[in-house]
């Protein structure tokens, strides 16, 4: 007996969930989350994932999500003790040191918090991906992550440093490096994902887009400085606070810059997704991402309209829309040998993505 995926050609996943079945689920989850003062959110997320996974068919077979809400709860409790409590203690130490006149120690403690957080965010991204893959099953075969979250996190910190040094101009390189690093660790059963996205085709578009954005930013910064210079003090002495008209102008400038940035970067964003996913392959399958800048724009405007015109209720649909957008724009060419796709020997983690949740870097 053969699966469709074993025949060479173009393969597209199929998403079969209607909006009403998701909406019913989301409303139920919302109500249960409210009456449990938020605790139910772990089970709510699990139910949502189970729904999305099971409605997504790949090569004729559905994905399965096997995670449990209790695993997410344990992850959150652990994150509180290994992340939040130590951070609180260190910031208390910093506050005490500052008050006792040990400014260097206070500053050191503050900086170490930022450094640890920077590292932890990357660590958490990798670990959350591992949890989700380990709970994803297709045709009875589990996915997994091999490799080390710590190594990935160091790479993430290095790339962050590079971005700072290059004023953001290294973004295509950094994003491709990290995407490749993450996905090279991903496994489906015994098969390894190959991630070889090349950043060079992105560089020209990025230089132009980010260059324009930076020039606009400098213009905005100079204008804002002119508006605010009589109201800002660097010595702690009292200054009159800026009048509302100035505050409004500064706010308008900031919002304006963000909008300009979004429009300028849209084409790059779409191209980056195509390049990153385009570098991904699994056995004889080569992946593609087909969303154009226009698709992304329609998707975002659709999201905004959905939320605004339903007075916010539509935001319940955003998770579904996100998943549908992704699934509808992924394609793969080639074929996969399902006999070579055997069960993974990598052990699955016992609990889930508490760090990513606490640091707010979880996506779905």
């Amino acid at each position: 007996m053969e699966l469709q995926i074993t025949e060479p050609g173009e393969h597209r996943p199929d998403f079969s969930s209607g909006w009403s079945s998701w909406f019913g689920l989301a409303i139920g989850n919302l109500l249960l989350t409210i009456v449990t003062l938020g605790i139910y959110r772990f089970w709510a997320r699990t139910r949502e994932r189970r729904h999305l996974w099971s409605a997504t068919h790949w090569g004729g077979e559905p994905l399965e999500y096997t995670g449990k809400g209790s695993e997410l709860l344990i992850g959150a409790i652990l994150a509180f003790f290994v992340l939040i409590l130590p951070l609180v203690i260190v910031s208390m130490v910093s506050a005490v040191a500052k008050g006792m006149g040990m400014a260097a120690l206070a500053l050191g403690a503050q900086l170490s918090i930022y450094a640890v957080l920077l590292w932890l965010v990357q660590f958490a991204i990798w670990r959350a991906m591992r949890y989700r893959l380990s709970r994803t099953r297709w045709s009875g075969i589990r996915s997994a992550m091999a490799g080390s979250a710590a190594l990935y996190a160091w790479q993430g910190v290095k790339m962050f440093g590079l971005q700072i040094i290059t004023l953001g101009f290294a973004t295509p390189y950094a994003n491709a490096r990290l995407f490749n690093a993450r996905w090279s660790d991903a496994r489906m059963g015994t098969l390894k994902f190959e991630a070889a996205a090349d950043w060079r085709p992105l560089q020209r578009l990025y230089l132009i887009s980010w260059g324009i954005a930076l020039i606009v930013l400098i213009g905005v910064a100079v204008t804002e400085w002119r508006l605010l210079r009589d109201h800002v003090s660097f010595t702690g002495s009292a200054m009159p606070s800026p009048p509302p008209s100035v505050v409004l102008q500064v706010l308008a400038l900031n919002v304006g810059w963000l909008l300009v940035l979004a429009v300028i970067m849209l084409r790059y964003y779409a191209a980056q997704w195509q390049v990153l996913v385009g570098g991904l392959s699994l056995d004889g399958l080569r992946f593609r991402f087909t969303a154009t800048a226009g698709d992304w724009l329609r998707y975002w405007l659709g999201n905004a309209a959905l939320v605004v015109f339903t007075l916010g209720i539509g935001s319940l649909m955003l998770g579904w829309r996100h998943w549908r957008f992704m699934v509808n724009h992924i394609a793969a060419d080639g074929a996969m040998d399902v006999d070579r796709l055997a069960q993974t020997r990598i052990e699955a983690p016992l609990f889930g993505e508490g760090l990513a949740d606490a640091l707010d870097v979880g996506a779905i």
Partner: protein
Amino acid sequence: MTINPERPLQGRLFDGKTARPHQVMLRAVGGGLQLIQAQSDQFLAWHELRCSKDGLTLSHANRPDWLVRLEQPMPADWRARMVVAGSFTSDDRRRVAMAVTGVAVLGLALWFGGNMILNAVAHRLPRSVMAPIGIGLVQGLGTSCATPAGTAAAQALMARLQGPQPAERISLTIIDQPVVNAMALPGGQVVLFDKLIAEAQSPDEVAGVLAHELSHIRARDSERAIVRQLGLSLLLQSLGGNLAGGADTLLLLSSSREAEAAADDGAIALLRGANLAIAPTADFFDRQQRQQRPARAPAKKGQAAKKAPTQLEEAADRVSRLADFTASHPDSGSRSRLFKTAVTSASVTPALDAAQWQALRGICAAGRARPGKPKADGPA
């Protein structure tokens, strides 16, 4: 649709070893299902089998990645004999009941005992740790002011309120900032902003505000806020997300309203104990309230100055009272009423003499005249 139980169901078996599906047939036999494959047959007992809600997927209790996908749903009498995955079993019911009880007990304990726990912890925090935190916060507020005479006046005011033998060491710092405010910070740090002293019309008004802050210090309100914010709130937010965070903020506002009301009561007691006038504090709040509501259009001279409040103004007043429900401080109007009703006919003496009052009012002006490095330490 009727299914002939004798006719076997077709399906695809995924054995969990590779992704290759195997064509199988399933037939009910005594005590379970017979799985018919090309080479061999297997017997699967009902109690080992799990069925999906739609009846299209069969999984096995002891083989984690094994599953059979059927081409048509299983007949009802098959499903009745196995556990339906995702259905609510009596075990689940017991677990949920235990969890709900646990959450309810914890919630009730925090609701009724939370303040007690917070108070107990707040009063046990060592001063050696809290004072530096408070000092650090004071330094972050701006330049502190000190002149020999002004500092002496500030200390005289403190001594007047605290009595000859103060129970604890409290330090008062006057900060040069254009805000009408005062604060009680951790580790016995009280801050008065210069603009408040400038707006006060007598030392008794400053004494009233200071008495309020001293009550906060005695009640360890800022320590309690820290313990609450860094311990309980973070734990609640880790578990309950934004929703629990919001609920926690509402609770926080209600408890800080209680703390403010208690500090006002404490202030009145302190002022009485020190033979200080209470009425000036009410005047101060009255003036503050008038300034908070400045938007009345300047009436043309010659017209009736005092008109009955328009509907708009009444509505605004109602909104401001409503807004007070969510704000942490009671509005100045109701505080003024509280202090006014506390006024007694007992004999009082001014908080400071004229020379001391002048020195206190000029404490920041001296520093502003000669620009230089901001002083790090305020009057202790």
